[in-house]
């Protein structure tokens, strides 16, 4: 069995660190891991996606539409964009944050009012929360990615200790406490 996790967001939001942490966590379970991310133009505020796959044997680094076990979305329009990647009974975690794409800023397109309703109506397992504010409460907007990981960890069968070890290894000492708090905040958000 291969687990497929999609991390989606807007270039510059910190999706790369999140995927680094997630893939190291997956790796420490002793399984085969493949990760795919796109660098370059899209990192300048465009739509970005990272794909993480792990299991006994993983061939392709790319997830097929309709097969993601989980989607972790850093922005809600991005959640909507990638929704059809989710499995029928997959879990989607959405950061309730709105970032206007340029066509919306320039007025040629509208940011849909009902993004969250659409997501809820199309998926069975939906968790939505404001990771940015949760991170701010812990001391830094930048830790929103780790808040999301905290929530994600609750849907994965991997000890908390493993997560903490990896975060401690990958996050600079200066920001460690903020990120550990952010992780705990994310875990707590799944229980509301």
């Amino acid at each position, binding site marked *: 069995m291969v687990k497929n996790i999609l991390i989606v967001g*807007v*270039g*510059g939001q910190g999706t790369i660190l999140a995927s680094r942490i997630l*893939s*190291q966590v997956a*790796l420490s379970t002793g399984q*085969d*891991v*493949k*990760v*795919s*991310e*796109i*660098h*370059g*133009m*899209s*990192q*300048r*505020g*465009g*739509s970005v996606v990272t794909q993480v796959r792990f299991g006994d044997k*993983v*061939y*392709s*680094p*790319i997830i*097929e*539409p*309709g*097969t993601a076990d989980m989607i972790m979305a850093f922005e809600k*329009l*991005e959640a*909507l*964009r990638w*929704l*059809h*990647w*989710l499995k*029928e009974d997959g879990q989607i975690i959405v950061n309730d944050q709105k*970032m*206007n*794409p*340029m*066509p*919306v*800023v*320039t007025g*040629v*397109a*509208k*940011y*849909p009012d009902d993004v969250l309703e*659409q997501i809820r109506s*199309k998926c069975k397992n939906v968790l939505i929360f404001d990771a*940015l504010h949760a991170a701010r409460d812990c001391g830094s*907007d930048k830790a929103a990615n780790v808040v999301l990981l905290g929530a994600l960890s609750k849907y994965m069968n991997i000890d908390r200790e493993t997560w903490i070890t990896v975060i401690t290894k990958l996050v600079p000492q200066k920001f460690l406490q903020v990120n550990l708090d952010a992780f705990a905040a994310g875990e707590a958000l799944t229980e509301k």
Partner: protein
Amino acid sequence: MMSKVLLTGNEAVARGAYEAGVKVLSAYPGTPSTEIPENMAKYDEIYAEWAPNEKVAMEVAIGAAVGGVRSMVTMKHVGVNVAADPLFTSSYTGINGGLVIVSADDPGMHSSQDEQDNRYYARFAKIPMIEPADSQECLDFVKEAYEISEKFDTPVFMRMTTRVCHSQSLVEVHDRKEQELKPYVKDASKYVVMPAVARKRHAVVEQRLLELQKFSEETSLNRVEMNSKEVGIIVSGVLYQYVKEALPEASILKLGFSWPLPRKKIEAFAASVKDLYVVEELDPLIEQEVKSWGIAISGKEHFPRCGEVFTEMIRQEIAGDCLQCKEESAAVGRPPVLCPGCPHRGIFYVLSKLKVNVTGDIGCYSLGATPPLNAMDIIICMGASIGLAHGMEKARGKEFSKHTVAVIGDSTFMHSGITGIINAVYNQSNITVVIMDNRITAMTGHQDNPTTGFNAKGEPAPIVDIEGICRACGVKRVQVVDPADIEATMKAVKEELVAEEPSVIITRRPCILLDKKQMKPAFYINKEKCTGCGMCMKSGCPCIGKDENGKAEINDSTCVGCGLCMQLCPFGAIEKGE
């Protein structure tokens, strides 16, 4: 040392080069290849440098190989167009120490201006090609490539694609094996390609191809995985992984050494299966070759010539099996934009306001072409902006030049802009060139270049002076402005547009992501004063939107306080944050 680590294909190529004892690397950045030189630069044992462009990088690598060491040169697919001249001749001369050329293709154009299929280059230059399918193969194949290079006295072409470059998978790493410095032997009959020599060398190249073809039949880089006899697939690169995923029953001929093709192996494989397919991205290169031998094979009737091939396409086309998935939701696109605080925004605002014609170039500043700035009429390739503006003037007269500007970045100017300037001076153009100097090669993720004061290892280096170069080329009018000062920038552009001679404006301010000290607290809107006129939105800053009352609104989590919008507001409604 032997352990398994998670590496991207690019990191694994760098590691492979290290283990193979490579001594010299020269490269010019380009997505998706950039992390190869960045990672090689971390090894003390390897001399690694940024060349100003791919042609120079190729020449340096050839020089190093002929000089007796293992050398490498890396670039994105279009870089090979720039480097093609020395590449083709190095095929004739052969090498001394091993030489590997890494070409990173970008099917799907995630970050490129075209999706040319560089597999043609191996055929065109008559050199062998290898194509890894995951990070482990990236590492192993690099080592193998040096053996092939030295055994057959040829440069080896290593073709990667975005999905191989930027995917991580587990890799077993080993120690470095130092290579002995080979003697430097003067041999004009090999290296001095005057016609009489080149004619002989061409025959050597043709003979070498025959030997490489034999090698292709024998090497374990080309392997058959026999399974069901119903379906047989010929495949190379990352597509192998997709085939394994989609068609677990199929028999596979996996080509790791994909030029010259192993004809006998392919014929035998074809005879052993009922239906034969080739799964390849972009052009039907293998397909045409195999068909020319009279073998029935299908390929492009199932797979697109444009864009990437994905697992689900293979599943559907060959297994006739379609995964169930939800319908795609309509979601507004999110194209990339100039970052908040980007120094390029000021000059583009000015050009957009003046409604001039703009010949563009390649870099972050290509995003000046997008709405609402719309400040670029044409982009061709790196360095082209200057020649394009000159050509337009020669077509439409000097008056046209008074409304036309060429824009080019600092790294792009070093890459291939200088010859354009020389041409403009020599051929008496009136063009106005804006060199957007953000002190770094930004688009590809902040690499140093000859103008930044640091080398690829991060050590201090001499600064090549842009103003000095322009003046030395004969441009008399050279001025430097701060693009964050709209008024000064506007004045400079107006002055130079009307000048009856070639002129250069250097807009100088570091990339906001490079020099984070420039970041200030978010600005905010004084709602009393804001009339909702929308002037502040004309610069295309992604942080500004409108609130429910139609007044401007600044996103305080993304604004970096550059203050550009404050200069645009006619009502003084934008205020500094604390």
